[in-house]
């Protein structure tokens, strides 16, 4: 449908602007496109999760969408795979790093563009292809679907690698004059460390996918179980490692992928906490070190997913120590957030609420992670519900809260408007209550199913309690998914509304992106290349409670203070 009224002129101009967008190599256009992609994926992914829960709780009820498919366990597993792939690849990986990072990283370091704009565009289209193919793999026969899924995962890896290359080089090479490493905003640090980590792990996923695909399509023998079956009785331990090999390569990627999703979120939350507390970040250097630590340790902990599948008896100890050592950077980050917030006169905007919600979820989810990181405790705790509860709290929902906080905070920079705060707060509280009602009971369910040591009578009683908890989880899921309509209304209502942002810097933030107009104009800083005079979170006077803009020169500052 083409309408001819406002602004953009006739249809030919519109087509031109559309093709301009499709082939545009501008980092802001590409960043926004990633965000749109994520928004679509998250909506589909959420609906899928509600369907999955409904199917678990009321297996006999025919659900419209699902009725078209056979009701085999494999189909259910395929649906879980689709939910997981959409959420992990196209939301948790794409939104905070590729979406927000592409839009904001050049702005925050004072660059005009990413280092390799054409590669950036190519990476985006690879991601789109991967999204389409991965979704399509669900429809149709499952056996072929898995091949399609593997190809799309490989294509996604390729795109992620190109993006990571771009992010790394941009951060190293294109910083504005005066933007030394210690002066970089923590968000930039997080995107940077994350890009390096992605660089390393997506190669491994690509290699793993190549090998599996070659096995499935060309009949090679990287992971084949033929030898395993042939030798079963005599030498179980050695050959037992065979099917595990693919798991190793996969978890090598997948465990680090958790940190790929979380690192940019850490950066966003740290940035928001300092900006809204209006004070320097507590121990900024230590925080940056902690981010690097998360990246380094995240790269090394792949083994701890393998406790249940068998490995060298000493290996679990090593991985348990490594996994537990992730507690150190996590504790540093938490200490910094809480100390920065402590006694600050904070204005509770929606962005802040989501940031604090992130911290809460991070603590709750992180604590249950301690059980899983210990190889001895893991045996007691590894049950499906417990693990699902744990990683959804800490990775899925916490990261989503960080993305939402970032969207509320940077919406003026992205679109030149501000989202409605009242709707935003309602959305926050409904979601916050909802997610705790989903994932906390899941932990209990997980522990209930592992209660083998109890006498039979108690187990029966516990099992019957489990049914009620399951229903509660399902109802809470539907509630939470429904609550997201508030966000959708708020997001699109603001976007289509007429009210525009009045100021360039509505949050009195200090970083470079707020020194230019809202939304960020074409060419970013124009001919007047920015110069940076100080760190991202510094005060004008020791007792003050306003952060100093990074670009404000000392002379101008002296005038202002006088």
């Amino acid at each position: 449908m083409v309408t001819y009224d406002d602004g953009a002129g006739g249809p030919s101009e519109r087509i031109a602007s559309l093709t301009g967008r499709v082939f545009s190599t501008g980092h802001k256009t590409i960043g926004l496109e990633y965000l749109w992609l994520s928004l679509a994926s998250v909506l589909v992914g959420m609906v899928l999760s509600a369907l999955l829960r409904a199917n678990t709780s009321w297996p006999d009820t025919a659900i419209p969408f699902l009725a078209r498919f056979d009701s085999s366990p494999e189909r259910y597993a395929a649906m879980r795979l689709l939910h997981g792939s959409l959420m992990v690849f196209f939301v948790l990986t794409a939104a905070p790093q590729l979406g927000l990072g592409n839009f904001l990283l050049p702005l925050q370091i004072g660059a005009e563009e990413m280092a390799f704009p054409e590669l950036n565009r190519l990476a985006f289209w690879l991601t789109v292809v991967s999204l389409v193919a991965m979704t399509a793999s669900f429809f149709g026969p499952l056996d072929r679907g898995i091949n399609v899924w593997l190809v799309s995962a490989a294509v996604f890896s390729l795109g992620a690698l190109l993006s990571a290359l771009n992010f790394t080089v941009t951060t190293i090479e294109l910083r504005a004059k005066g933007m030394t490493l210690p002066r970089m905003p923590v968000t930039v640090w997080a995107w940077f460390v994350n890009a390096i980590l992605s660089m390393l792990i997506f190669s491994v996923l690509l290699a793993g996918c190549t090998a599996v695909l070659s096995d499935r399509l060309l009949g090679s023998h990287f992971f084949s179980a033929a030898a395993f079956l042939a030798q079963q009785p005599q030498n179980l331990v050695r050959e037992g490692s065979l099917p595990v090999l693919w798991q190793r390569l996969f978890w090598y990627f997948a465990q680090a992928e958790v940190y790929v999703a979380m690192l940019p979120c850490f950066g966003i939350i740290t940035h928001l906490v300092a900006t809204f507390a209006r004070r320097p970040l507590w121990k900024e250097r230590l925080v940056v070190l902690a981010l690097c630590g998360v990246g380094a340790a995240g790269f090394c902990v792949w083994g701890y997913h393998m406790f249940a599948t068998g490995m060298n008896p000493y290996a679990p100890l090593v991985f348990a120590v490594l996994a537990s050592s992730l507690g150190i950077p996590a504790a540093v980050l938490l200490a910094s957030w809480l100390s920065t917030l402590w006694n600050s006169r904070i204005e509770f905007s929606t962005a802040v609420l989501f940031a604090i919600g992130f911290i809460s979820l991070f603590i709750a989810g992180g604590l249950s992670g301690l059980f899983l990181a210990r190889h001895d405790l893991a045996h007691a705790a590894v049950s499906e519900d417990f693990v699902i509860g744990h990683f959804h709290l800490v990775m899925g929902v916490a990261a989503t809260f960080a993305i939402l906080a970032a969207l509320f905070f940077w919406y003026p920079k992205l679109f030149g408007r501000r989202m409605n705060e009242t709707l935003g707060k309602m959305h926050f509280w409904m979601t916050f209550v909802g997610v705790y009602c989903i994932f906390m009971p899941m932990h209990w369910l997980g522990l209930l199913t592992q209660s083998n040591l109890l006498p039979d009578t108690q187990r029966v009683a516990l099992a019957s309690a489990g049914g009620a908890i399951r229903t509660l989880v399902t109802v809470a899921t539907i509630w939470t998914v429904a609550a997201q309509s508030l966000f959708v209304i708020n997001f699109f209502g603001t976007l289509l509304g007429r009210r525009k942002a009045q100021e360039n810097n509505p949050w009195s933030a200090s970083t470079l992106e707020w020194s230019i107009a809202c939304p960020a104009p074409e060419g970013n800083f124009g001919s007047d290349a920015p110069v940076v005079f100080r760190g991202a979170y510094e005060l004008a006077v020791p007792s003050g409670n306003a952060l100093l803009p990074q670009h404000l020169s000392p002379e101008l500052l002296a005038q202002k203070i006088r």
Partner: protein
Amino acid sequence: MPATLQEVEVLEKRDGGGGRNRPPSGGNGGGGDDGKNQPKKRPSPSRYYTGVAIGIVSILMFFMALASAFLVRRGSIDWIPVHIPSLLWFNTVVLLASSGTLELARKRLASGDARGFRDFWLLTTALGIAFLIGQVAAWRILVGQNVYLSSNPASSFFYVFTGAHAVHLLAGVGALLYVSFRNFDLAKVTRTVAADVTSYFWHFLDALWLFLLALLYLGK
């Protein structure tokens, strides 16, 4: 203690302009086009050097993942070692020679000898293509011995290692041809930068091949 004014004022004064003040807030969304009207100048070349270095690390990681799988898989019951065709040793010499001629070409370029540069550069490209043809011939020899990708794990690894390396080398040949035939007056980079970056990539592929060959030969 947070930084104070004294610390800020030590910083070097910016010549002219005196820092960015807030631009007028009239920007209503369409945005100015002031970045576009200026003549496009070449971006600083250092990004390409950094880019190729980081790309190399990433490619290395890809092969390391496969190599670790190779080491784990080696010695399982269905492992039948591949007898490496002796043609591979000849191919290796060709590839090593190409690295040498590449360096000679860069020396000619640095001394301003455009013709000498082009000759050695094309020689390098020819050697690279010869290596690829040699690899295909090696595969055909193996096929002649009834050793296929799907024969056993060892042969699977052999074909995938050599194949993945050949794909990367093909990209390298593409880069060599680009440097030969691109009109650098219109490009974002100078010929020297492009030649440097290509040569780093090429030498890396050379070293990678030595590693893979050693792995396949010693690890069988």
